[in-house]
């Protein structure tokens, strides 16, 4: 496989998005081509840097309060303060959240 063809696939290779056969071809080329291997390392460094950007940021405490105020205001506008009955889809949603929480 020529370097130019490999380099067009390097990003998808770095993202584990190549099918098995093309991935094996790229890996085979990388084993003996320092230039393409260096390019892959650069792509991976860029990906790692992007993942690290603001990675330690957490939702500020003020967001909860602002959200509650916004929901309260929209409820007054839309519902006039009346209660609505519980919908079956909500129970399904809760179950879905539980399943997601259990890693399914």
């Amino acid at each position, binding site marked *: 496989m020529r370097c*130019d063809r490999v*380099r*067009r696939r390097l*990003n*998808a290779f770095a*993202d584990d*998005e190549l099918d098995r056969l093309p991935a094996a071809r790229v890996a085979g080329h990388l084993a003996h081509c320092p230039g393409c291997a260096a*390019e892959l390392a*650069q*792509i991976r460094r*860029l*990906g790692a*840097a*992007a*993942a690290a*950007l*603001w*990675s330690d*940021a*957490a*939702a*500020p405490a*003020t*967001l*909860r309060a*602002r*959200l*509650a105020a*916004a*929901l*309260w205001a*929209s*409820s007054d506008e839309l*519902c006039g*303060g*009346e*209660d*609505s009955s*519980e*919908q079956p*889809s*909500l*129970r*399904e*949603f*809760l179950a*879905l*959240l539980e399943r*997601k*929480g259990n890693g399914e």
Partner: protein
Amino acid sequence: MRPFLISESTADSARERAFLALYDTYADRVYRFCLRLCGGSEADAEDLAQEVFVAAHAGLQRFEGRSSVATWLYRIAVYRWRRLRDSRARQIAAISLDDGPEPASTQNDPARAGLARMSLEGALAGLSPDLREAFLLVKAEGLTYREAAEVLGIPQGTIQSRVHDAVLRLRSALSGDETANEQRKGAAGNAL
């Protein structure tokens, strides 16, 4: 239905508990994505995250579980970010029409442009919105191409080419990498 003050003690219906669970599970992740979309502006990110959760609250009953909850929230975030961005662009256009010439842009300020080139944040800001969305979803948020395609409502192949293009442009912006520039030109040539 009266909404709640987002605390366990006052969440007394299934809808409230569902939304509370959703908020507790995804608030940090959604906020971080908003922060990345907004280029690190905490005020904009908080505004955007609030809009995302207000929309999620309104749409909770319509959520059918066909996509993952995270994908659904990312989709809302992208849609709201585009609206926010368009509205800001209209405001800036209106100000510039009303008040005379625009202030000097980053592109015309070599010192600021130089600073921007040195950081990934600056380089990201220089990407088109389409490329930035695709790049952030895949590289920063860790979505697969299929998931990112679902969020943006575009084919998987388009995600692949957008992420590829974004990587070439970012490498070029960050390092003045001639190889990346040449590849980008080559890719543009091949597309014609």
